[in-house]
């Protein structure tokens, strides 16, 4: 299987060939993969060098001129470093753009904190209008990129080296029901779905697959809810979508557990799998934490809700 990043480079190059509005903006990262496309479209493949503030501002200016820019670099340098440019040169201007990151929370585990971006989705969550995709498979990333290219809005596609074995999404934006149960709903975001499926094997829970987290599909969460007990499993900062769940269930007594990347720095190198385990996101840890959360609710009698309050 190719990686999401390889698929991105191939599909973006194809979009350049077919849509004269599309431009790819780079800041050295992944520039090699676009050399052939740049020779075909020298004015629409722009590498600004190691200038990430400029990368975002150029996207805004190109959009104001009528183009559909796709800006790409590592998540840490695409979202966190030039955040004011995102806020002002995209949102505040009313300019649309597609931001495509790679690296995610700990793809470059050995590179350390500087190349890790667990806070990107939470940051974008402070701004209006963003569609935030967290694909779990290259096929999903490709479909998201193609859909974004023909639009005009603000779209973030968070690519990761971590992926599920097969594409799981059957809907364009909403959540997909992977399993139905009665004790709780587990929302598995993007590339953590396989780990969640393994972790909840034999458990009487609903598992929803969420490859898009903004907008957050409150309708499906609500429509499939049996017990008002929700566990979020997100491959970035833990609890990033907890407020979305709280808003979806505002009229119900409910319990929410937000699992994800811890706020504290690990200060460890190694591999992505080691980081996944260190943050308690491997299948065994997930199973233990989810089961513990359900047991705690059971003991206090809060896992049940009357049929009337859910009607």
């Amino acid at each position, binding site marked *: 299987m190719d990686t999401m990043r390889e698929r991105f480079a191939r599909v973006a190059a194809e979009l350049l060939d077919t849509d004269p509005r599309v431009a790819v903006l780079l800041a050295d990262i992944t520039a090699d993969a676009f050399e052939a496309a740049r020779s075909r479209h020298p004015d629409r493949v*722009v590498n600004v060098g190691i200038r990430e503030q400029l990368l975002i*501002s*150029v996207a805004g*200016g190109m*959009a*104001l001129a009528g183009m559909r820019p796709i800006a790409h670099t590592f998540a840490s340098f695409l979202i966190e470093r030039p955040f004011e440019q995102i806020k002002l040169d995209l949102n505040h201007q009313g300019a649309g753009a597609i931001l495509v990151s790679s690296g995610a929370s700990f793809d470059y585990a050995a590179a350390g904190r500087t190349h890790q971006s667990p806070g990107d989705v939470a940051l974008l969550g402070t701004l209006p209008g963003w569609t935030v995709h967290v694909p779990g498979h290259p096929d999903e990333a490709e479909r998201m990129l193609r859909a974004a290219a023909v639009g005009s809005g603000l779209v973030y596609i968070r690519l990761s080296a971590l992926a599920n074995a097969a594409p799981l999404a059957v809907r364009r934006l909403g959540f997909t029901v992977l399993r139905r149960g009665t004790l709780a709903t587990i929302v598995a975001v993007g590339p953590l779905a396989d780990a969640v499926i393994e972790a909840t094997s034999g458990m009487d829970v609903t598992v929803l697959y969420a490859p898009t987290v903004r907008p957050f599909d409150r309708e499906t969460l609500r429509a499939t809810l049996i017990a008002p007990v929700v566990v979020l499993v997100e491959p970035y900062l833990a609890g990033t979508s907890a407020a979305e769940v709280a808003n979806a269930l505002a009229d119900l007594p409910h319990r929410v557990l937000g699992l994800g990347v811890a706020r504290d720095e690990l200060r460890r190198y190694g591999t992505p799998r080691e980081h996944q385990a260190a943050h308690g996101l491997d299948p065994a840890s997930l199973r233990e934490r989810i089961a513990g959360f359900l047991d705690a609710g059971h003991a206090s009698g809060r896992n049940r809700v009357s049929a009337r309050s859910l009607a």
Partner: protein
Amino acid sequence: MSEASTLPGYSYDDLPGLMALMTGDEKHDLAAESTLDVLWVLYDRVLRINPAQAEAEPRDRFYLSKGHGPMAFYAILTAKGFIDVSELPRYGQFDSVLGQHPDRNLVCGAEISSGSLGHGLPIAVGAALGLRAMGLTDDRVFVLTGDGELDEGSGHEAIAFAGRAGLAALHCVVVDNASASYGWPGGIETRFAAEGWSAIRVSGRDHDALEAAFTAPHPGRPHAVIAVV
């Protein structure tokens, strides 16, 4: 397209009166005053933008990056027919379209929203790249910044890249009122020239000199005009 014509009854001499409608008297802060002549010459003699044909091609884009003290900008947009004069006394009020920093989504004639320093020139680089990619080679982008604003590092990302990219559609006007806390030894124009720009230093009050500087040929290179006030 030609330059925007001044509305009947308005001339350069009326600008202080229009600004007074916003400030309540005829004294203006330095930020507003410093840009008055530069903006007038651009709108009266140079820019091909016109409220009656706002989307017609070819046209120029003007980006006010130094969004602080926009009274001169609003006064000139009023004289050129973009803003109704009745809006000026409501400057800064809750439901006015005229804020202390312009919002392009509210003000007719404001091509960018600005206020936070160091954004206009980088956005202008993107616009110039976009126009080039779309084959709109007669469209020009003018951006107004200040010597103090160029303290922001984002401006220097833009200056370096635009020079090397040969963005001839890009024009940067730096109103130099010596407000940068640590100054620019050798003159701010040396920073542009070193990166491959055409760069000229002129009086920011001399209308003919400003017009000549704004329209000087600069084939294959972006152009910087340092307007000293």
